[in-house]
């Protein structure tokens, strides 16, 4: 019975199926919000599902030049990494399905795998555009990854734990008791949202798959089913990234149980999605050198400042 329950949790709720539905709904919401910000109607609700079914039913072309094995298998790696990372986020109880001390670090690393897979996909396609896309993916990784990790580190350092469920339960109460720490946490939250935008390769950081410059970046040669899996896994990464920020900074499911917990989780995740869509519609793409400069000169020092405040005042015992 216990094993069955675990399988249900992993495959249906809150595991794979729930994540897939969330990915499709949030993709629609993102596109719809983007459309409404541009004063147009936007796609119908069922659009992401239609896109996915169409991609799965299309012919899948594997180019002759491409590295056959890598090219065929890479999408599944990114898919598996994202689905695994979702299990550590608390959704309907205060605790996640798989919760252990240090799962914050594991999730942060699991969410890096889709990026690495994208770079490898670009390389294994062996076309000029996809290789440029792969290189850009990797160079961009160095600009946003450090600020993103540092931003996640701030609340973890503040509470002295690496467990997502524990952070999401304790952070709101801790902040209410010590309002001074709103400053570092809000700093870290801002940095986290902006670098998540870079992680998900959305505007203004959609440099790796810039349509107007390098066709479709790493995905230039992908078609049909393989591209469908890539697309689904990127949508899922969008969900996992948004819910990770919601759990770490906004309290996620906090200490509720059942329906209130799911509602609280969903509302906070939707808030993050709204902010991400707002950023996407407000800005245009920047160049890769501007992106790196922005990452290291603005984002990293800001997140370090937040951490410094925590270290001086909390660990130094001043407050």
């Amino acid at each position, binding site marked *: 019975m216990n094993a069955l329950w675990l399988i249900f949790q992993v495959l249906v709720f809150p595991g794979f199926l729930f994540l897939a539905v969330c990915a499709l709904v949030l993709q629609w919401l993102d596109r719809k919000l983007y459309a409404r910000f541009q004063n147009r109607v*936007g796609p119908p609700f069922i659009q992401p599902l*239609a896109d996915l079914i*169409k991609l799965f039913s299309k012919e*899948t*072309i594997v180019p002759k030049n491409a590295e056959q094995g890598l090219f065929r298998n890479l999408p599944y790696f990114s898919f598996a990494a994202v689905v695994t990372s979702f299990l550590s986020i608390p959704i309907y109880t205060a605790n996640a399905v798989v919760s252990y001390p240090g799962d914050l670090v594991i999730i942060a690393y699991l969410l890096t795998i889709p990026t690495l897979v994208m770079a490898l996909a670009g390389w294994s396609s062996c076309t000029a*555009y996809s290789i440029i896309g792969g290189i850009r993916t990797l160079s961009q990784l160095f600009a946003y990854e450090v600020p993103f990790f540092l931003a996640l580190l701030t609340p973890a350092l503040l509470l002295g734990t690496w467990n997502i469920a524990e952070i999401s339960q304790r952070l709101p109460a801790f902040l209410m008791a010590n309002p001074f720490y709103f400053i570092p946490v809000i700093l870290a939250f801002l940095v986290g949202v902006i670098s998540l935008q870079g992680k998900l390769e959305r505007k203004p950081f959609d440099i790796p798959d810039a349509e107007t410059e390098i066709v479709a970046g790493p995905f230039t040669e992908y078609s049909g089913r393989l591209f469908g899996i890539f697309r689904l896994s990127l949508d899922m990464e969008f969900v996992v990234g948004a819910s990770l920020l919601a759990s770490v900074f906004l309290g996620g499911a906090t200490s509720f149980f059942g329906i209130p917990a799911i509602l609280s989780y969903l509302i906070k995740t939707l808030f993050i999605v709204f902010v991400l869509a707002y950023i996407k519609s407000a800005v245009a793409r920047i160049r890769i050198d501007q992106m790196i400069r922005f990452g290291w000169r603005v984002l990293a020092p800001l997140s370090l400042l937040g951490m410094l405040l925590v270290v001086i005042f909390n660990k130094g015992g001043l407050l």
Partner: protein
Amino acid sequence: MLPQAVLSKIINWSRYTSPWIIHFNAGGCNGCDIETLAALTPRFDVERFGILLKGTPRHADVLVVTGPSNQQIKDRLRRIYDQMPHPKFVVAVGSCAISGGVFRGCYNTQGGMDEVLPVTAYVPGCPPRPDAIIQGIYVLLEKLKKGG
């Protein structure tokens, strides 16, 4: 799992709900291309019909092609068409793409797009309005809906 008839109905539905297009200029005067790009702007909002502009032929379902297709671009156009995964469709936009237009009879052009590619829908005009281009793609989708 699902019976074949239901499955093919679902697949057909997904095809006419989410046509991704790629736009290619086969030696036209750029007039039709400006109108095609205008059709993709927020004012006309083709995303309502699920239409998205894609940069690579590997992701696209519909090739929106303008111009008379001259000798030099003929092979490139053919190659782009071959790079698209099945099922794929072609919409010829503008007078040149239909019959050669003002370039008809020129030493370096074909008589129209259908001498190079199998065209499904034609959009007349020199250049056609963005509304007409959207309607052309809509006609193609209607055909898909019926044809299965």
